[in-house]
């Protein structure tokens, strides 16, 4: 294998030396015909420019037809649909700009190749033109900025409102745990120094809000109901990424981050819509977090609200009743205060 590699390199170099020598010799033979040589280079490269433009754009359209169906299906959340809509507007603007500028660039390069009988047009300033291509982008961007910002405000406002079913996503190397807040919709407080083998989230068992908290290794969400994710990490930065819902928020040790969203389609509906009976939602870690980063994930299911209630009943409490008393190693009072911002 090694010998082959070395041989390939040596052979490749020899070919290049040969090519360069031939080229040098050829230019010597043609005498001082540098001009003619440049003229031919100009012709071929300018044709290359227009060919690259035409072939490039055609291949681009072909590839888009081929690959766009492989990208994410339509959003399965309320705000996700708005993001998709915004994305469409942006893409339209960007594609128009892309086509205009690339066509002008490569077409001019093709059209104005060197001709020794011609002088270029001595044209170095024009305030009117400069004004046009300052003002038009400004107007277009003003529109994009305003629509983008208002959508962003809509999304983040919901996260700040604290409405919806509270679910904690607890990240560590290399898995996620979901904790449902239960009937009181309040998470019991937790503290990293309380973490033990049997209490991997460091939850305070003496907190009244803990009693009805439920632990799950799968994220199951009811359709059409607002969900409030409360995101924590206990070691490094992770990221909670739910691509089908257009949801992403980092999990940062030492602070709680939030993301609120409303699923609009059940898994079954998505299977029908995508024509893929095996379709599943997914939560992925999207911030480099260690060697097994690429395997850090959690299955996600969206079901009808009634089914959700049923499922919830089958989940285990943080501290199963008989253990609750025994496991009660109360965290220091001051630590509970610093643990979770509520």
């Amino acid at each position: 294998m090694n010998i082959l590699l070395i041989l390939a390199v040596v052979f490749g170099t020899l070919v290049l030396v040969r090519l360069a020598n031939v080229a040098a010799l050829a230019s010597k033979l043609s005498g001082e015909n540098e001009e003619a040589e440049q003229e031919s280079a100009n012709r071929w490269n300018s044709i290359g420019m227009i060919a690259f433009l035409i072939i490039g754009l055609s291949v681009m359209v072909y590839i888009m037809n081929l690959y766009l169906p492989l990208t994410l299906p339509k959003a399965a959340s309320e705000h996700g649909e708005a993001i998709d809509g915004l994305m469409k507007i942006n893409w339209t603007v960007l594609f128009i700009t892309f086509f205009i500028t690339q066509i002008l660039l490569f077409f001019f390069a093709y059209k104005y190749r060197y001709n020794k009988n011609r002088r270029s047009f001595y044209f170095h300033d024009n305030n009117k033109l400069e004004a046009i291509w300052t003002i038009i982008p400004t107007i277009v961007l003003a529109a994009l900025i305003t629509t983008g910002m208002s959508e962003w405000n809509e999304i983040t406002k919901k996260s700040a409102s604290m409405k919806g079913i509270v679910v904690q996503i607890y990240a560590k190397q290399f898995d996620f745990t979901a904790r449902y807040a239960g009937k009181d919709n309040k998470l019991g407080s937790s503290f990293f120094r309380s973490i033990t083998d049997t209490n991997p989230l460091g939850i305070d068992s003496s907190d009244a809000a803990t009693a009805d908290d439920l632990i799950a290794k799968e994220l199951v969400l009811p359709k059409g109901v607002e969900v409030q994710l409360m995101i924590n990490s206990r070691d490094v930065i992770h990221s909670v990424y739910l691509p089908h819902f257009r949801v992403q928020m980092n999990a940062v040790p030492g602070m709680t981050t939030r993301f609120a969203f409303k699923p609009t389609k059940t898994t079954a509906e998505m299977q029908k819509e995508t024509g893929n009976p095996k379709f599943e939602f997914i939560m992925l870690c999207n911030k480099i977090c260690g060697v097994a980063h690429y395997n850090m994930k959690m299955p996600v299911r969206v079901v009808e609200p009634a089914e959700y209630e049923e499922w919830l009943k089958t989940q285990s409490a943080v501290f199963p009743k008989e253990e609750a008393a025994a496991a009660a190693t109360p965290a220091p009072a001051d630590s509970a205060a610093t643990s979770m911002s509520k």
Partner: protein
Amino acid sequence: MEVNPHNSMAHGAHADEHAHGHSHDHHGHDHDHDHEDNFWSKYIFSTDHKMIAKQYLNVAIFMGFLAMFMSLIFRMQLAWPDAKLPFLEDVIGKWGKDGKLDPGFYLALVTIHGTIMVFFVLTAGLSGTFSNLLIPLQLGARDMASGFLNALSFWFFALSSIIMLFSLGIETGPASGGWTVYPPLSALPQAIPGSGLGMTLWLVSMVFFIASSLLGSINYISTIINLRTKGMAMTRMPLTIWAFFITAILGVLSFPVLLAAALLLVFDRSFGTSFYLSDIFIDGAPLDHAGGSPILYQHLFWFLGHPEVYIVLLPALGLASEVISVNSRKPIFGYKAMIGSMLVIAFLSFIVWGHHMFVTGMNPFLGSVFVFTTLLVAIPSAVKVFNYITTLWRGNIQFTPQMLFGIGLVSTFITGGLTGIILGDSALDINVHDTYFVVAHFHIVMGSSAIFGMFAGVYHWFPKMYGRLMNKKLGYIHFWLTLIGLYGTFFPMHFLGLAGVPRRYYANTAYDGFANLININHVVTVFAIIGGLAQFIFLFNFYYSIKNGKKSSQNPWKSNTLEWTTPIEHLHGNWPGAIPEVHRWPYDYGKPGAKEDFICQTVPFSETPESNTPHDH
């Protein structure tokens, strides 16, 4: 280190002369023959800016190829995750046992590839080479303001490169937390093996790198402000110099912040502080250090990190401005608008860092502010693009290899810049953040544009560096294969991002929905290999032409700027006689009435009555 006393004294004298505005006429170069260069003083510990430029370029080429090899290895892993690649064990030893790439080493490769490309190739390689080469030559100075600091800058860079290379060979592997080395991952060896000694070496290397960059930048700035020749008003400087000037200012203002971020990280790692650490439970025990914030690091990092994008890009745009104008035989359109837009971009680059942090849990209001400032960058960028296109319009284009790369740069700058509008819009960023969409975006707008600018610069100023021409035919093949290779690599990559594939994944096996994307990964890797192989044509052409290239004439591209008034053979002090005086701007190409289609900056208006316009005085 040997410092040539003759040179430094001479420089002092020049500085004086310039400051007092005396004439340069009596400046014979009397110290040309009263010292002898040996190998060490000429090639290694040189204080001559031209030699230092070449030193930078050669190190950058070496580092660039190394980082490119790394990318090819991990691209093969992504395209053929199940295949056994028998050569891996030969190349990377235990990390490629039985032809399987180690997942930890995959992350190390990604990390070091990014670090080398961003800092060692596109920052030091680009600014280090061309600022050093062109600032004195295009301004009419005998050397940099301080030749010694300049040499020191290169040697810090070399040291930093050596440390980074050394870290590749250690037992626990090099830093592997991504090129942004976010703590806590980078602070805790328990979290990933690469955060042990590898990370320490990474930080030490970066400290030397920052020192090198600052020494260089301070030198560039003082040279540009103080050592311009008579008549070289700021508004007569070529756009290359403007770009280097603005770049150097950006570097001076932002690199110290990276140094602060790195030092705090060193403290957290080694001295028990917790600037970035809080509420951490790792390796079966709670960490004693608490009360810090990992987000603080991100703010500090990206306060450098975003200007860094323009530290990389502006020199490339400056080189392209010069190359496109010269080869279009036409003045650059909107000289002042080009300077203005660079200044605006530079200013904005300091207030947009938060767009890297939309989904970190940063205050959402701050997010909106950063959307606003970020998308504003598109305006000066659009101005630049339209000005380039207008420069081509009705030009008289000579398709030299550097011109092709210049045009390629404008194309990638457009393509990558446009997808930046998606990423800068926080609402849209949510779903593409940290996916392959980002990877595609910055490789096109920053990676490709900057490297195209660098290639344009190398082909254009090679005769100035080595007195010979590079082979044009090989240059053409190099360009076309590179252009096709890079669009073939990075265009399909956008779709991976739109399919929700996260970056820095060793394999896309976590989710069944990614299974049908393997075809895209095949395409990407095949084009990456094509593009990678094409670089060997360049490598060969470069080193072959140093010895065997066709001898260059004094002004091979019929250019207006001062560097082409120096003799082909290098000499200390650049001009054998007096420093030339400048009488006009650098872009008098194709001027109506002129005898030729270019008028050098040294030609006074009194000698060109046939082409003077009413404004020319």
